[in-house]
């Protein structure tokens, strides 16, 4: 079966800093892949390379067997939904307009009333009441902003959803709520998901498969069930949060 997303020897440097040193990764359709790794190991850069937000220096990224730079850019991006680390909601527009942002643009542009109705339905799906729809992002708590970001990511029912640190900055209860929502939504839509996080609770709640990135390369990849028995010392140190081991604590 053709992988939904495939990264072949992807490399990226920023000046003298080599962030990705040859990432190889394959995600099957409908799979929920979680990429773990310490801060500054290249997780977000890898994700942004797939979306084309950052151009890799070398290597190839294929989506359904085709290079991510080929074909119509808008049609390519329309297949993706993304939840950003800080939600990245647009401050100048209301919550419902944020959720319906894509629905109000492009060839498939919906009338305002229809887009608003869908936005409210998506907000309800992530546990927010319709009265939130007319508020502005600055009026919401961090957890609510994350949920609105989640609603925006699923608004157009994309085939592929990216989650960038979905639980960062949230309390444990809200993290649990977001993890559950992510898992439910991915299963419900049948989307392929790629999540980057260093929150092990999220990993266990969201992942079908896990990949560990370290020093710009994938160190280990396998099903979530094999994570705890992985023989890789890097994985072992990371998942148990040990200060000593092959991963340097000071980076």
């Amino acid at each position, binding site marked *: 079966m053709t992988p939904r997303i495939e990264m072949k020897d992807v490399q990226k440097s920023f000046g003298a800093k080599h962030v990705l040193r040859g990432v190889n990764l394959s995600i099957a359709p409908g799979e929920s892949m979680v990429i773990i790794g310490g801060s500054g190991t290249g997780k977000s850069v890898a994700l*942004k390379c797939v*979306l084309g*937000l950052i151009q890799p220096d070398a290597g190839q990224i294929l989506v359904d067997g085709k290079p991510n730079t080929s074909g119509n*850019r*808008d049609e390519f*991006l*329309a297949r*993706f*939904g*993304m939840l*950003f*680390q*800080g939600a*990245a*909601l*647009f*401050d100048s527009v209301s919550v419902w307009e944020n959720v319906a*942002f*894509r629905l109000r*643009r*492009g060839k498939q542009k919906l009338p305002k009333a229809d887009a608003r109705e869908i936005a409210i339905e998506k907000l309800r799906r992530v546990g927010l009441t319709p009265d939130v729809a007319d508020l502005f992002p600055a009026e919401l708590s961090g957890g609510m902003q994350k949920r609105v970001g989640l609603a*925006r990511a699923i608004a157009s029912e994309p085939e592929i959803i990216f989650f960038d640190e979905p639980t960062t900055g949230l309390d444990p209860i809200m993290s649990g709520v977001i993890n559950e929502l992510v898992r439910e939504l991915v299963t419900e839509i049948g989307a392929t998901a790629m999540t980057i996080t260093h929150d092990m609770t999220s990993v266990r709640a969201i992942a079908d498969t896990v990949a560990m990135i370290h020093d710009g390369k994938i160190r280990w990849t396998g099903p979530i069930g094999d994570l705890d028995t992985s023989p890789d010392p890097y994985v072992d140190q990371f998942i148990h949060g040990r200060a000593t081991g092959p991963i340097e604590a000071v980076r």
Partner: protein
Amino acid sequence: MLLAVQGFLASIGAAVLGLCRATGSVVLFAVSGVSHIFRPPFYFGELGRQLLRIGFFSLPVVGLTALFTGGALALQIFAGGSRFNAESVVPSIVAIGMVRELGPVLGGLMVAGRVSASIAAELGTMRVTEQIDALTTLSTNPMKFLVAPRLLAATIALPLLVLVGDIIGIMGGFLVGVGRLEFNPATYINTTVDFLEVGDVTSGLVKAAVFGFIVALMGCYQGYNSGRGAQGVGRATTNAVVSASVLILAANYMLTEVFFTA
């Protein structure tokens, strides 16, 4: 000694190369922004919002600046003119000075301080909080959605602002001329109208359009390429105001040279 000279020359070379790189980068950004003004989709709602923000909300600042400048100009010209019995030139020089030079330049500088900083801070914050990346993932080109409407709005709004500023500035001169310098109101207005030519007004408005473009361009460029964190946004805001102000003064000299020789 030789090493010190080499080091000095190398630092000059690096600065020149840096300046060339920055200039090239701004020009490419401007070309891309302008090209998006003419290519669909067009965001008319966004254009309207920016016209309101850049144009309408800058009116008090530009109006007050023009009013006081017109008044001060009348006093200065009267003081200078009285040295060779030429007090009667006050209305005509106030009008020409405001319309050709002070209206567009001071209007441009005031809007640079207000709008350039605000655009840079807004876009810089959007960059830092990944809102610009979010726009891209939502199939919306940030150059088209954020930059093009601001460039167009500022280029349209500034001549209108300066036109209003010119009228208010001349009125400032009139109020001082009549109230303080004992000019006859009718004579003052007649002299102003008689001496002012269409070319004076249009040259000022052309300047204002160029200054408007510069204000938006530097705000957008610095904000769009803002560094990380609060410090990055702060630096972008400062750079936007400083670069816009310097470019306005440089462009003013070049445009004046063009109009002067034409």
